[in-house]
């Protein structure tokens, strides 16, 4: 039953906070188990889990939740990235009381993200977007150091503006449709046909979600916030929060509520293309490891939006697959940067060099992550980018397809620069006695790398079923 994905993390938070001895040590294991179970539950589509129908809960609760294939992709990514964040928190969050708080807030964030992934009502989507946003404010400011607090404040202001725009859009939709349910609004919009309020509402939503996704021209907050947040928070933010709170919400409301009109498509395509190119160009010039990764995130999210803008089943399936890919390779790269940062104490890539000898596992996994991001076969990133490019070509947006390919080349360029400067090249004197990072950072890195390779190798067989799963979403 879908509601359990929301209720179980929440009840765990309640249980963990009971004044019983030894609860605090349970926290890590409990959270890890929950995230693992979430991933497993998604992978077994016919499990009894999804079919346990409302017998117990229906009497008491009446939640409007639904999990189609798009939601399931996102739910899997949520479980995956949260597990990775949990492990990285072991290294970076020192004090055991702080660890406990971190795990609790992480559980609440996961709770919120699961609800966003499964919501079928625009206002509930908004409420849980706020839950995710507030948890991320706390996580960004977790270390209470100046960069973290600055980043948190900037994010609060921008998120506040996006919030207000979204509520304004919801208000206009309530005016027209009298309800906040996706399907009801969809039918009302079909019946309405081109009124000014509708366009205004759509515009407000799109701007609000562009701000939350960090797309150009509203990307200003993203590099600052990603760089200044503590390492585990950066992994969570870049890996899943921006995607669930921004990109997935956008896909969901365009697909299930607004429908594809020509103007929406052109805005999506244009903004996506601009983000791809400008994000990649900006990443080329960065000298801070995390900042380069943030601009790369902007660029990759642009790909997802291009896939959405194509409006075809292939494009949206490609976009969903790219959500999974970006979650996996970006989390991997941020874990690598956390590993480097934890051993070296610095993020300046111009000062690094030749780390491949000293940190072999980090270097190998980062190569896998970089190649997947650049879309090199046979890794997973290649398939999702191929799907998006083919979808754009087939629907007729040939120019955008070319831009997407160009973006891939730029991506390869900046990642080669990164690899050369950090892991290969002359070893620098400053960082001579560096050892490999600890287990809690290496284990998720290796696991993610294996996942990326496996997904890439298995993709050709699984893709057809995956794409077909999207037909009911688009058609309906």
């Amino acid at each position: 039953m879908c509601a359990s994905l929301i209720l179980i993390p929440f009840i765990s938070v309640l249980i963990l906070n009971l004044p019983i001895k030894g609860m605090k040590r349970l926290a890590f294991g409990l959270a890890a188990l929950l995230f693992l179970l979430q991933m497993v539950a998604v992978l077994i589509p016919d499990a009894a889990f999804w079919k346990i129908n409302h017998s117990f809960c229906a009497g008491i609760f009446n939640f409007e939740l639904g999990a189609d294939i798009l939601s399931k992709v996102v739910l899997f990514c949520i479980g995956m990235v949260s597990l990775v964040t949990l492990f990285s928190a072991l290294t970076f969050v020192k004090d055991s009381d702080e660890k406990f708080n971190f795990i609790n807030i992480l559980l609440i964030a996961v709770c919120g993200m699961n609800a966003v992934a499964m919501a079928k009502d625009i206002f509930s989507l908004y409420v849980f977007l706020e839950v995710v946003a507030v948890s991320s404010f706390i996580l960004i400011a977790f270390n209470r150091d100046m960069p973290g607090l600055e980043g948190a404040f900037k994010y609060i202001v921008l998120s506040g503006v996006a919030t207000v725009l979204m509520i304004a859009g919801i208000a206009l939709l309530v005016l027209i449709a009298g309800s906040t349910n996706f399907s009801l609004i969809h039918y009302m919009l079909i019946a309405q046909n081109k009124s000014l309020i509708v366009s205004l509402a759509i515009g407000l939503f799109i701007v609000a979600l562009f701000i939350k996704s960090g797309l150009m021209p509203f990307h200003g907050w993203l590099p600052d916030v990603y760089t200044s947040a503590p390492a585990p928070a950066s992994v969570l933010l870049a890996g899943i929060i921006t995607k669930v709170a921004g990109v997935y919400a956008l896909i969901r409301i365009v697909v299930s509520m607004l429908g594809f009109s020509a103007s929406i498509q052109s805005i999506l395509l244009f903004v996506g293309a601009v983000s791809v190119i400008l994000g990649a160009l900006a990443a080329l010039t960065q000298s801070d490891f995390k900042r380069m990764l943030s601009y790369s995130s902007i660029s990759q999210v642009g790909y997802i939006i291009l896939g959405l803008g194509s409006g075809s089943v292939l494009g949206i399936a490609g976009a969903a697959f790219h959500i999974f890919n970006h979650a996996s390779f970006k989390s991997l790269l941020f874990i690598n940067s956390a590993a480097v940062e934890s051993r070296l104490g610095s993020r300046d890539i111009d000062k690094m060099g030749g780390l491949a000898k000293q940190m072999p596992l980090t270097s190998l996994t980062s190569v896998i992550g970089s190649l997947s991001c650049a879309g090199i076969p046979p890794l997973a990133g290649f398939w999702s980018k191929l799907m998006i490019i083919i979808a754009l070509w087939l629907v007729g947006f040939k120019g955008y397809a070319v831009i997407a390919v160009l973006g891939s080349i730029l991506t390869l360029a900046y990642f080669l620069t990164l690899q050369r400067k950090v892991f290969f090249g002359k070893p620098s004197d400053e960082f001579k006695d560096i050892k490999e990072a600890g287990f809690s950072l290496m284990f998720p890195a290796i696991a993610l790398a294996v996942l990326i390779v496996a997904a890439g190798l298995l993709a050709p067989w699984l893709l057809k079923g995956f794409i077909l799963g999207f037909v009911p979403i688009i058609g309906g």
Partner: protein
Amino acid sequence: MVSGIFAVLLFAIGIYCILATHNLIRVLIGIEILIKGVTLLVIAAGLKSGNLGLAQALVITIIVIEVVIMTVAVGVVLGVHRLTGSLDARNIRKLKG
């Protein structure tokens, strides 16, 4: 929809407040004014479409969310004050966009 126009005015005041101030608390007051504008809009929309029950439910939820956001924001501002001793927003401009 007269209220709609005034909601937009409130929105404009809020945005101006956020942009033109050098004090962190005033930025939060600006966000508050934005939220008030949008609350007015929701109630007006509910009134016009006859859906006041839903509109009020939405507004109540929004108010609860707003309180929590403000609490966390105040926590961040207090943190900044502890570290720098002032509430000047120019201290926040260190990170480049």
